[in-house]
């Protein structure tokens, strides 16, 4: 009998281990981590400071929250992506007042373009899915 109990015990331990680690990894997924790596680093540098769930800037948080972005409905995501693209193209973001304080957080032309390209490709992907 013992011959069966030991292997069975180890197999169960192994399976429960897999289940536990899996459940941890699925819980720990803030929306921002779903962004492509190049976009994420730019967002972290220039956008996330105001556009996050704990932001004290209520207007910024209401307009766009990168923590919850991934939970939005498809159409709302498309709308937000369009707005991101427009504010970046028109040079409205990051705001001038903010840049006076933190000039190092400004976007380079390449970074701005990378974000705009992302909004377009992500929109196309969302429409097709």
């Amino acid at each position: 009998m013992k011959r069966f109990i030991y292997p069975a015990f180890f197999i169960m331990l192994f399976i429960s281990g897999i289940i536990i680690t899996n459940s941890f990894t699925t819980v720990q997924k803030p929306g921002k981590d779903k962004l492509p790596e190049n976009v994420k680093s730019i967002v972290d540098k220039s956008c996330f400071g105001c556009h996050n769930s704990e932001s004290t800037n209520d207007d910024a948080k209401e307009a766009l929250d990168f923590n919850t972005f991934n939970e939005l409905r498809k159409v709302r995501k498309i709308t937000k992506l369009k707005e991101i693209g427009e504010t970046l193209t028109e040079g409205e973001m990051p705001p001038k007042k903010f840049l006076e304080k933190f000039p190092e957080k400004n976007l380079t032309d390449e970074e701005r373009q990378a974000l705009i390209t992302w909004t377009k490709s992500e929109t196309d992907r969302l429409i097709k899915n």
Partner: protein
Amino acid sequence: MKWFIRILLILVVIFIILQFFRPERITEEITADHIFEQEDIPEEIRSLLVKSCLDCHSMQTRYLWYHRIMPASYLVNNHITGGREDLNLSYWGKMEQMQKLTALDKMCEEVENGNMPLKSYLLLHPGAKFSDEEKEIFCNWIENMNESILIQMIE
């Protein structure tokens, strides 16, 4: 007492002069491009749009008597030109599918979080405020509209 009458007189004169600089009223007849002509919209939603949105977001503004008086006409005119610039439902037929999709979604968002109608508009049109129930009906209609627009975009 004399200075008081003088100041009052100056203010009256300024007020009268201001009346000569009234901004022009621009309205148009409904054309085939209007959202009401383009889409099959339930009566409930139509009346919400008329009541709360179309005074600024269309070419068919219902002007009231005080809109003729400066400086009220100036403030109102600013809202109307701004509103039409952001979204003009009289030209719905000229918009692309993508614009329609995001415009509708934005309408739902702005109404849901209470940014629209503007507070200054509600001050003079108290009936234009969306109740929670109206917000829900409005956003449900928009979701249905957007589902069919999305399907058309994929095709």
